[in-house]
């Protein structure tokens, strides 16, 4: 296992956000963290690369304790794509080059620039290399953020709600891209997500949070509708359409509440 989480708790001003969280993440798979609003999905993700520090518990990255690693060492192992990416007057090429930060001491060398060129080609983004970020659409910005994470050359990639602000076409584009990246580079991807249909279609593993702790986890194809019903507090069924799983609410939320 590339990442293991043991008994972590997280408190914010004495309010418990996460309690007794345990799981492990394998290479070459996409793990999706599911759960209702406010359950602590994003907090959990941010604990995994020390953006937030858990109150108790242990996290190990490739058997090394996360606690003992400084933020730069962590950035060499784990990359992170935030839910919202700020768009300034800086080119796509330079924004992606920022991903080389943990590997650069003073100034970017030719090798770093070449890697950026390579990733942009890999993701078909070369045509926009000199565009400024503020000129890009939400989907393009998200792709640039993923490119930056790739150029960081880490084995673990954290994605916080990667499709939350995207239209349907861009959602499938980004998630297909993530799928290919995992296959091509044997990465471990951990992402939070609200869209259950996308989660069931693109993820390999799931971790369901309820009441600030892990309520269920396992292979995505084994996820059951009664688990989702309990987690979201709304009766749902999982049906298949043209081979794809779809989560369908079978009762209005107002009635369920």
């Amino acid at each position, binding site marked *: 296992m590339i990442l293991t989480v043991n008994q972590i708790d997280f408190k914010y001003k004495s309010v418990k956000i996460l309690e007794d969280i345990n799981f492990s993440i394998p290479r070459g798979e996409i793990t999706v963290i599911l759960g209702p609003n406010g359950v602590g999905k994003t907090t959990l993700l941010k604990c995994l*690369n020390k953006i937030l520090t858990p109150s108790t518990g242990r996290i190990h990255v490739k058997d090394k304790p996360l606690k003992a690693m400084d933020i730069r060492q962590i950035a060499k192992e784990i*990359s*992170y794509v935030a839910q919202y990416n700020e768009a300034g007057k800086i080119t796509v090429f330079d924004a992606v080059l*920022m991903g080389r*930060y943990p590997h650069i001491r003073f100034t970017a060398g030719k090798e770093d620039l070449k890697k950026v*060129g*390579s990733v942009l080609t*890999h993701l078909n983004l070369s045509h926009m290399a000199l565009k400024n970020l503020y000129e890009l659409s939400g989907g393009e910005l998200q792709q640039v953020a993923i490119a930056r994470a*790739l150029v960081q*050359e880490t084995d673990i990639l954290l994605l916080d709600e990667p499709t939350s602000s995207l239209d349907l076409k861009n959602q499938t584009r980004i998630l297909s891209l993530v799928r290919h990246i995992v296959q091509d580079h044997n990465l471990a991807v951990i992402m939070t997500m609200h869209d259950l249909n996308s989660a069931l279609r693109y993820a390999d593993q799931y971790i369901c949070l309820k009441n600030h702790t892990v309520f269920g986890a396992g292979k995505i194809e084994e996820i059951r509708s009664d688990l989702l019903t309990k987690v979201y507090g709304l009766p749902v069924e999982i049906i298949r359409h043209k081979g794809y799983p779809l989560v369908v609410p079978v009762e209005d939320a107002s009635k369920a509440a």
Partner: protein
Amino acid sequence: MHFDHGAVPDAYIGYIRKKSWLLFALFSLMAILFLISLCKGAVKLPLSAVVQTLMLDAPSRKADLIVWNIRLPQIVIAILSGAGLAVSGAVMQSVLKNPLASPFTLGISHAAAFGAALSVIIMGTGVMASSSGDAVAISSPVITVATAFSFSIFTALIIIFISGKKGAAPQVMVLTGVALGSLFTAGTMLLQFFADDVQLAAMVFWTFGDLARADWNDIALIAPIVLVLLGFFLVKSRDYNGMAMGDESAKGIGIRVEWVRLSGMLAASLMTALIISFVGIISFVGLAAPHIVRRIIGDDHRFLLPASILTGALILLAADMVARLVMLPHVLPVSIFTAFLGAPVFIYLIIKGNPR
């Protein structure tokens, strides 16, 4: 995961080259203005005489005195102050993610003015020197400078301390600065209310930014600190670029966001406090120069910071020259002209600039 077989797009190399040429053009413009500024004043000197004097081969005693004792210290302090104020403004705006961040917004200028006013009224450093037009003077500039500096750095430390407690959130720093600024303004008004005519005139005189105040001794003190801080900011330019992506993304690539924000604020505050306490309050450069540069050269701090340094120096050099020439033989306060020169350019760029 490795991406080792890429190529750097030619267009990107061209783009970087273009930005470097822009910096070179700004530097050349500054060098030209530097020489013109040495020639112009109550006594006009030919360029050849100025160059000869600079090469320690003055054609006359008069040229030697004018260049080395009067104009050069004023021009050197203009370059240092303009560069320092502009880059400090750029860094404050970047680390606080607030386009309004500047020594004014953060209350540092108000604190310096209060410190100067306090030295005038409590320590009696404001005097009536003669009955001529330039009658009012500061009798002990060292005390006034020291008091102004102490209060401005004290303000910066309070802002940094409070933000440290609250996790260095940008809005906390700016709001604290605004509150402190109001406090010091009220304090200055109180002192002015109880001041006599001479003290009141001395306080107002100090708040005019005036580059002629500084001499070589002052420059020897200011220059090394300003140069070290400029170097510090340039080294940190990649960190500021990372922080522009958002705090969490910056942490994700290994940037110690809180430390970069606090060290940037501390260095920028030290720089502005130092400059303001020696030359008085020079408005506009710290706020506008980085904005002018951002619209022309973009937000990439590898270019934004050196361009801000050069543009700040250029604005202050130009303002100083105009202040010396417009009402010969009188020299007007330079801070009037920094706004007169910069504001129209700034407004033009806001109207014409990119939609952001």
